[in-house]
């Protein structure tokens, strides 16, 4: 349901389903984070501020007409790129990776922004191109995606760069990329895998992939994270060990409990039942996005809703797949749950834009 409240000439654009579901997730997230952070109230308070600010931001971002985003999408992209470059120059280096820009009150992970602005820009660029998309436009788009992918991958941040790559790829695909091109691209990718392995992956990234392929080789070394994560999830059983009772999380066996591995904490403390409840909220949000995309007013809105919701879905599934040990370890937050302001805010913005695209109607569809 899209809702349009009229206050004389002033209208409020709002989708109560998404709003309720996202608020629910955010509150659950704070609740989980309290346990995952070893009952650290300051972490939760900080996150709560982000949640409140994020919800407000989501509401504000959903007010402008989609045309506003269509018009300024290029500016947004340039702004995001500037942030990336600034990060390259002034970025804060943590554990050998330069991903963060210190803004004083807030440490911004600039790559989180571009994964929103890139699909919007591409939607705007491709929405009025004739079908199927010409080779020329395909290549222009691909070069842009490849360029931004390379920028993020250089930080190095393989996880986010893949999501950035996907965010562009989804829009291109939804806009009508020719199947022949898709087929040859996949073939080319597979053929160049060894080359990519040797030239683009950092040694620690290679190690993660090797660990994934052979997890038993070194359970106390590189496979520690994933081993402990599986133990945490598995030992949760059906009912879980109870809130704040997870031994894996509370005795420090599980790494990164507040961020990447928070799902393992939830699974340990709330069991399979808790997992099902949490995932059904996520599933509901995705289904709602599908519905909104189908009912969007024009091609730009469709592409944007499709692109952004798929970015959300990809982040979610990569995180889950990593935590249960199906894909190698990549740094990827659980949307709306994991600690971390940048990712949180970027998803509030994304859903704000989705709501804007879904709620603004035109009498005459283009």
């Amino acid at each position, binding site marked *: 349901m899209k809702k349009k409240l009229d206050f004389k000439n002033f209208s409020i654009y709002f989708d109560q389903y998404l709003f309720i579901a996202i608020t629910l997730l955010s509150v659950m997230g704070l609740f989980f984070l309290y346990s995952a952070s070893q009952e650290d109230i300051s972490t939760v308070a900080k996150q709560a501020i982000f949640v409140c600010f994020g919800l407000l931001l989501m509401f504000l971002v959903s007010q402008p007409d989609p045309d506003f985003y269509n018009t300024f999408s290029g500016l947004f992209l340039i702004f995001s790129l500037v942030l990336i470059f600034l990060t390259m120059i002034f970025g804060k280096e943590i554990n050998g990776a330069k991903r963060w820009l210190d803004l004083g009150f807030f440490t911004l992970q600039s790559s989180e922004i571009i994964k929103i602005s890139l699909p919007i820009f591409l939607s705007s660029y491709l929405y*009025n191109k*004739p*079908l199927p998309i010409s080779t020329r436009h395909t290549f222009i788009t691909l070069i842009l995606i490849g360029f931004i992918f390379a920028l993020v991958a250089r930080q190095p941040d393989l996880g986010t760069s893949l999501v950035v790559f996907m965010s562009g790829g*989804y829009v291109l*695909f*939804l*806009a*009508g990329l020719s199947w022949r091109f898709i087929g040859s691209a996949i073939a080319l990718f597979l053929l160049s895998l060894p080359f990519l392995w040797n030239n683009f992956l950092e040694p620690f990234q290679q190690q993660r992939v090797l660990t994934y392929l052979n997890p038993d080789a070194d359970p106390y070394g590189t496979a520690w994270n994933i081993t*402990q994560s*599986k*133990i*945490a*999830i*598995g*030992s*949760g*059983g*059906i009912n879980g060990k109870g809130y704040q009772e997870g*031994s*894996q999380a509370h*005795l*420090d*066996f599980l790494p990164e409990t507040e961020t990447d591995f928070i799902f393992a904490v939830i*699974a340990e403390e709330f*069991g*399979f039942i808790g*997992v*099902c409840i949490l*995932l059904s909220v996520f*599933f509901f949000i*995705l289904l709602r996005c*599908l519905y909104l*995309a*189908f009912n969007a007013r024009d*091609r730009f809105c*469709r*592409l944007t809703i*499709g692109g952004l919701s*798929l970015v959300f*879905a990809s982040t979610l*599934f990569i995180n*889950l*797949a990593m935590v*249960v*040990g*199906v894909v190698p370890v990549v740094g990827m937050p659980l949307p709306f749950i994991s600690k971390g302001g940048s990712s949180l805010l970027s998803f509030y913005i994304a859903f704000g834009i989705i709501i804007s695209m879904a709620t603004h109607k035109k009498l005459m569809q*283009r």
Partner: protein
Amino acid sequence: MIDLNERFIEKRSFFNRLLLIYFFFGAMFLFLLFKTYSLQVSSYSDYELAALKNKTKEVLVQPVRGVIYDRNGNILVNNVPTYDLIIQPSKIKNLDDFIINISKIIELSDSEIENINKNFKRRATYNRELTIKKDLSKEEIAKFEVRSYQFQNAFIDVRYSRENKYPYLFSHALGYVGGVSNDKVLSILKNQDLKQSETTFKYSSGFIAGKTGLENIYDSALRGSFGKKLFEVDARGRLLKELSFEKPINGKSLFTHLDLNSQKKAFEQMNNRRGAVVALELKSGSIVTYLSTPSFNVNGLSNGMSSVDFEKLINDVDKPFFDRAGQGRYSPASTIKPAIALFGIKEKIVDWNFTLKDPGFFVLPEDQRIYRGWKKGGHGTIDMKDAIIESSNTFFFSLAYKADINNLISHLSEFGFGRNVCKDCFNPDSGLLPTPEWKMNNLNFGWFKGDTVNLGVGQGYMSATPVQLAYYSAFLAKKGNLQELSFVESDSISNTAFINKLSIDNSDWDQIHSSMIGVIEDPRGTAKRLKPLKSYVVAAKSGTVELVSTETKEDYKLVRQNIGNRDHAIIVAFGPMPDPEYAVSVVIENGESGGSVAGPVAIAVLNELINK
């Protein structure tokens, strides 16, 4: 503007493609749900166990080692609780700083600091603890406890140190305890079905095992079984709280046959001379006295001594570590004669009426070589009894001359020579009963008749330990009815009917006994000086072990200027006769006279055992 048709195619293409991706994600969603289900439901028990293993740690609790008693219930070895200062080397980054800081509170001696420096690294590697100062005073404990917050890596705990109440008396018999190698720890844990599981050894760093003596032989019984404390731990291995405690089973007490009083007497009599005393209780065949002198302080070794003191012990020319009683090899010399006499009777080479004129020497018919007796001019015409009482060499030279060497060897083996005769002695030596094969293999020479002749008076290649000599003495006393010796009464009384392989008549045994009584009681006896030292009858045979062969007494006087060249004094004895209860052997290195030097020690020990 795109026309309507195109817009319709575009819309359909978009929906199809979006649905395609959603289907892919839907499949992924189901797969992840299935994966979570398989972790949480199908494999739940595996992961529950893994989580349990993660968060709990077993810490072994050491049992208290068994107490060792003598046969009258006197405690010989006990455990003494002390408050020790213990550190965790793996948690100390800078050892020098640590020592400086701790020294401000508790004074450490040079040898204690040396001990820390020596063991620190290894303990840190194995995550073991290290005791840096033992037996703290109340004042020191109070001083440390007040400042203990400064020392997260050190603590005071009660530890048991092993205390031998008579540290010099039983050094070789009971032995000492000490720390054990990591391999040994692992094998002990394996035997008790325990896994090391990176145990910090919080409660078992004082892990000790018997190194020598009965402490070693009965180590597993004395040790007991480990208890377990289960702790909740975090990923860094910190012990958070105790979950359960399975108490250790303390070691069993060891009730030995050793007799404190006779051991004391023997020690006093030996007066630090080099030698050994072994006494046996005949009825049970058990060892009541087991002494090797000079001795050493066994507690020093058990509980750590400075390396200077240790070097001093190691380099002592009198070799106090050496267990002369169980490992010292001495020729039996004339003490062998009763066994040779029995051989003569058994093989019908002689009988008790046979006489021989002893000119003081024996000439080997083969090469005219002369074998001398100890008395110039000889003993005159003597029978075998006289030959034992007066210790005639000539008589036994000529008896041995007529013996078949192989028969003689198997006969002597029955008396305990050349084999281990003790069930629970630590590293017992078997002495040497030379055979023609042994000589060929070791000396590359064939067996000469002269070798057999030498064997007749217990000289030459043959050697025996004081334990074997005591066994021999007891064997004579019990007329061949003797089993293996033991310090401890065995649980299963293996009174398997003893088969006396020696076909020797009781009357012949009696004759031997009366001859050996004569050694002391007869005015001609070689040990007649012992007669007034006791109030009962004792049978004995003395011996004097020639270390350097000399032709005349003048030659010997020259030789004996070097103390190390003087003859060993040796005696075997048993009594009271006619129903002997105890047998004893005494060896005094370079003591010169079996009868008058070793004899009084033997009699003093027998007095202690019998007159109570």
